[in-house]
């Protein structure tokens, strides 16, 4: 998991309500696993797992208004 051996990326997953959920991890699947640590089953069910985009940390601020 360390940054030298296993770098992480940021992902924006579509939500069923039209908003986006920010997640991060070594892969989209890992990012969903990490979200699952803190979200309830109902909140996880709002995420559309196959609809996501990979974003760069430097561009994070462009997407803040889309989060939900």
């Amino acid at each position, binding site marked *: 998991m360390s*940054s030298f051996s296993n770098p992480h990326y940021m992902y924006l997953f579509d939500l069923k309500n039209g908003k986006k959920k920010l997640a*991060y991890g070594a892969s989209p699947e890992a990012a969903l696993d990490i979200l699952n640590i*803190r979200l309830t089953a109902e909140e996880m069910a709002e995420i559309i797992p196959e609809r996501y985009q990979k974003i760069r940390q430097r561009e994070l601020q462009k997407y803040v208004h889309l989060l939900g």
Partner: protein
Amino acid sequence: MFDFFGRIKHQRHSDILWLDLGDLGDLVNPDGPHEQWQDHGLGLLRTILHQNDIQTDILSTRAVRSWPELRKLLPGYRIMLMNVRSYTYPSGLKAAQLFKEVNPEGLVMAGGMHATVALDEMEAIAAFDKICQGPGEEVIVDLVRNPAQFPRVFLGKGARSMADWPAIDRTLWPKPASRHLKRTFNWPLEPECGWGPAPVATILTSRVCPWQCVFCNESSYIPNMGRRPVDMVIDELNYLDRMHGPLGSVVIHDSMFFQNPSWLEEWLEKYPRRANKVWPYWAAARSDTVRQWPELYEALVRETNWDTVSIGFESGSDRILRLLNKECTEDDNLFTIELTNRIGDDLERQGKQPPRFWANIMLGIPGELPEDAFKTLRMLKTMKRVFPSISFYAPYPGSALGNQLIAEGKSLMSKDNYHRFPDDEKVAGVDYGFYRELLAGKYDHEINRGLEEYQTRDINFAEALTKA
């Protein structure tokens, strides 16, 4: 310098004011040493202004005991400048409103991290006439000379390299504002805070930590910038030692000192040789960078007097380290702890000062389970020499996780309580009662029960070699 009541007298030399921000009274009768630290952004930008023949006066919310006391000092100024961070936003907001009450035609110019991460909050306040997002060192002179040429909100511009920054004129920093504090402060150097002997020089060698921890994400705001050359850092310390010293110790206030091995190797070679004295210093690392470059880390600790090693361990649980996107593991943390313990034991045997950790720890992270928190405290107990710095996770706007929690309606923070009080409740759904009991020792038996297993587990140290 002080009036009959021991308050600092304010002398005017300019119609441009720089207002230093912080809690009222922190330069009069501070609660602790860290409240007395000076603002390098203020120091750098005032130095640039003065070198360009733009004189400014300095006042500080930290140097007064009340808002009416500050209000009396504000009339007649044409411009007030402020460097606003999220945790100083409440005092910046109040000061801006007071300034406009007494100087309706005056201009309030604000920049700083909060302007960048929470622009909407500042835009909504009419008292902020100009708001600079991002670094300001390449625009501040033009802004103050020709404010009308700038829109209300604009993007600042920073230097390409810290080599382009002038050395801060530390006499432009606010002074301690009571006779009592003046005796212990060592102005224009800074007071002792428990990390090393006074007087202390705080200094920056690099800007921006490039990692992506989701409680911070500073690199999503500040462009990459070249590191300050080693020789310039040493020259500045030697100058401070000659002019204002003798220095007792140094705080290298970089977000991440232990990065960029070629710079560190040059520091290792030159600091012991060229500095007037090998002053002990505080500086920050990550546990995975220590594991990546253990020989370099050990050499720096042993040969350059890096005796307070600040590490953002944050958690002793892989689950939570993943949630924080720390990109470090439990094993990285334990590797760093064991290496530092071993170096410390050896130096102690030689009668030398052993290195200590300044261990940043977070609790109350949404999703954290009691066993995660127990593991974190077990990790802390394995450090032989440590200053623990424990706080509850804070969802600051601008950070990735902060933005997401705010969007989910789970943040309990607002513009009125951005202060960094470590035990404030900050996220809905977190059982703060549990954490208070944890810190009060209620679960010590549970923590100690798993300690031996935690300390004696088998770490694959060979992995460090393969990664290096």
